[in-house]
């Protein structure tokens, strides 16, 4: 896919092998190819053939494996019967962000892993792509299938417009409540807009989806409002009938190495990806020639693959434990390796090296795993680097929740019960900011939906409609 070894083509890109941070390493055709849709959509014919493969199982295991419980067999049957719009309605009624989930869910560890045809032949029905087919069909019509219930007059504040907040706001609006959606950033969508790898959600899909969600009506959007800055939780509690927190994890763990904040080229992977996602022109983005990414999760993989696709010559992931402990799925790791990313295990960053204010390398200690602990091997090695991206986890900035409120926190995240109620009456929470959050878009959607239903019940609405 990358064509850096091609001498003739590099000639027209003087920066292709430039040392240090440099933009404009590739031709525009290369950028376009590298950041095109990772899984192109199914054509109608492909969708029919694939839909026919579904066995319409009894109590389908795929549905159980979906955190939002989409009636998968039903929507596939609807596609097979020529009613993709009906299929989309089935999907959206369980998961209003079914369009994004179709693109970003690690289906290989969710629905498709559970598919009986995975068991039978190692070839699951392509549920994610079928879901995309149906949801694209409906979103292409510009309409959404839901109508608001009669207005209840209840007002609910939703803080954070990521998947959790959007799903919560939509369900509440559908149930007839008035929602005010507060968001710190300029654009809605949370990590859908600022975090997900660019090739998973092309052509501005995140914003199209936001518009789709908001089109139900009854959701008033206020951007530039950050809880803990110009938004106060105590006031929200006072002014609204209920509050939902879907603020994700706005902070990041630090490497705690000297030079982390001063050396040029050392930065946080989440910021790097956010900049990439917002860039109008990829050729304007500087990337190192030799990039090292520290971490073992989805963010590390995405940062590595996207640096490679921006034109980095060598990309290495450094992870302190083994292959089996990596949070990134088999599929994600394979994707990285196919792009030529090297993954080095059992290595703990020890120090950053720099020259004239620029990073030049990373020194790591070798470690040996023993009974779950990592013991020093008494040996270290150096990797040359002009860019070091840290992807060692995001954290909740808990003091934003305010001093007056005693929301229970455990392990750095908000504690909620099965209904997504926090320890403080009137405040619900969901998504990445809560304990047991699995850091998946689809889990955040389910949290938002369940919280909305719980809020609705707490306000004395009948449960019958659900």
């Amino acid at each position, binding site marked *: 896919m990358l064509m850096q070894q091609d001498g003739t083509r590099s000639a027209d890109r003087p920066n292709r092998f430039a040392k240090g941070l440099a933009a404009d390493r590739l031709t525009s055709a290369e950028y376009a190819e590298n950041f095109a849709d990772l899984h192109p959509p199914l054509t*109608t*014919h492909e969708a029919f053939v694939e839909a*026919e493969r579904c066995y*319409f199982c*009894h109590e389908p295991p795929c549905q159980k494996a979906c955190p939002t419980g989409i009636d998968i067999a*039903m929507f596939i049957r609807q596609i097979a*019967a*020529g*009613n993709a719009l*009906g299929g989309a309605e089935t999907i959206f009624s369980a998961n209003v962000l079914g369009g994004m989930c179709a693109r970003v869910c690690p289906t290989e560890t969710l629905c498709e892993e559970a598919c009986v045809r995975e068991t039978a032949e190692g070839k699951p029905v392509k549920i994610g792509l079928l879901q995309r087919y149906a949801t694209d069909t409906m979103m292409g019509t510009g309409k959404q299938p839901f109508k608001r219930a009669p207005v209840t007059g209840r007002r609910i504040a939703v803080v954070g417009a990521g998947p959790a907040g959007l799903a919560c706001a939509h369900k509440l609006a559908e149930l007839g409540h008035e929602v005010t959606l507060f968001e710190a950033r300029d654009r809605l969508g949370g990590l859908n807009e600022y975090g997900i790898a660019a090739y998973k959600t092309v052509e501005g899909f995140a914003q199209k989806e936001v518009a789709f969600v908001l089109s139900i009506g009854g959701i008033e959007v206020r951007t530039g409002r950050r809880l803990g800055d110009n938004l106060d939780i105590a006031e929200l509690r006072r002014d609204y009938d209920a509050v939902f927190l879907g603020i994700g994890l706005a902070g990041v763990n630090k490497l705690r190495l000297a030079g982390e904040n001063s050396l040029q080229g050392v930065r946080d992977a989440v910021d790097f990806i956010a900049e990439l996602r917002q860039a109008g022109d990829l050729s304007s983005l500087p990337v190192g020639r030799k990039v090292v990414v520290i971490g073992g999760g989805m963010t590390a993989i995405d940062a590595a693959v996207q640096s490679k696709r921006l034109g980095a010559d060598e990309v290495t992931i450094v992870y302190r434990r083994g292959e089996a402990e990596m949070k990134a799925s088999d599929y994600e790791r394979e994707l990285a390796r196919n792009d030529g990313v090297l993954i080095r295990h059992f290595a703990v960053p020890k120090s950053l090296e720099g020259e004239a204010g620029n990073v030049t390398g990373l020194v790591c200690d070798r470690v040996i795993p023993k009974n779950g602990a990592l013991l020093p091997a008494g040996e270290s090695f150096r990797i040359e680097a002009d860019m070091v991206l840290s992807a060692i986890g995001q954290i909740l900035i808990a003091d934003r929740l305010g001093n007056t409120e005693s929301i229970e926190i455990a392990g750095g995240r908000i504690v909620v019960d099965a209904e997504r109620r926090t320890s403080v009456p009137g405040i619900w929470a969901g998504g990445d900011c809560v304990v047991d959050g699995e850091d998946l878009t689809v889990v955040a959607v389910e949290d938002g939906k369940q919280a909305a239903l719980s809020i609705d019940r707490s306000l004395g609405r009948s449960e019958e409609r659900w």
Partner: protein
Amino acid sequence: MADLRTNFAGIRSPNPFWLASAPPTDKAYNVTRAFEAGWGGVVWKTLGEDGPPIVNVSGPRYGAIHGPDRRVIGFNNIELITDRPLDVNLREIKQVKRDWPDRAVVVSLMVPCEEEAWKRILKPVEETGCDGIELNFGCPHGMSERGMGSAVGQVPEYIEMVVRWCKANTRMPVIVKLTPNITDIRYPARAARAGGADAVSLINTITSIMQVDLERMTPAPHVDGKGTHGGFCGPAVKPIALNMVAQIARDPETRGFPISGIGGITTWRDAAEFIALGSGSVQVCTAAMTYGFRIVTEMISGLSDWMDAAGHAKLADFEGRATRNFTEWEHLNLNYVAKAVIDQDLCIKCGRCFSACEDTSHQAIAASVNGVRKFVVKDEECVGCNLCVLVCPVENCITLEHRTQGIDPRTGLPYAQPPLDWTRHPNNPTAKRAAE
């Protein structure tokens, strides 16, 4: 959302989807779950007269033929009518109807061909509060040898006679379920109407042997080494059923007579087709037996979404709309010319169209152009038979195009000519000439 409410011969249901009389409707447990799933009505599994219970085989009673990927495309059975005691069924019917007043509960009946036997069963059935009865004149196996089921349904005079008895002895709507095991379906339908029936339902199952076990040399499935003919149903019988429904719908003697369409209905589209050919409700058995009751969700949403898109607010808006375009061969326009066209952008160059046309049809497809593999239709040979369209694995790659301009190189005649059917065609020795 389109209005799916149905009033069939005075029997109301929230949607036209009924479960046909068969195992899915054999007991309250099933019927309750079916209603919970959303079915609009049921025809209860056929009841017989009071007495020693019916005995079914305890070996295989069903057989099937499978399409690719083990899709069930045809199904057959040698099951008899209900084998549960009459009073148990009646009690359950009464309770179910009480619990589900908005759903259609029709009771299927089959008793010996004597007026007293029918009188005896009608009264307790009427007392259940059910919405109507369906006379099972269709079952082609087991009961027919005992002078019931299709043994009655194959003799129009018997149908008329039994319907008269029923109408004389009950106020309930009477539906006559017809057997397809007959040469001309219009005769039993006319007999049902003549006897005063309120509606017909069709088709029941078609006499069949599913397979032969070549090791045992017995029809399969077998019961202790012997097999028997059973009743065929499922997707494969739909075309037969559609034709029979349409024949009755357009027969001047039965026009307007309510029809409940049955046979192979599996998706909303199948149902819509039956309704377009004149069915006022539809019944489903095999699809439910294959996939469970949940399929009705797809049927309801699919039908409703399609009606919305097509601009039909209620079922009556399209019921029977296709019947008027169902005619005799001799009335087809023989001057209409269509020819196949292959979309080269869609063509995957499999060449199936070529094999089919070259070997078995009109040698009207070329397999190469200037030595390059490419499939194109030769207008001078193509008769527009549709074979290539059907065997092509790519949807819409080959289409039949109606020609209206220029000269047909096959016949040398202009494409545009006034309509001409066989009744007026010069080659027809008995043609009705305008001059005569």
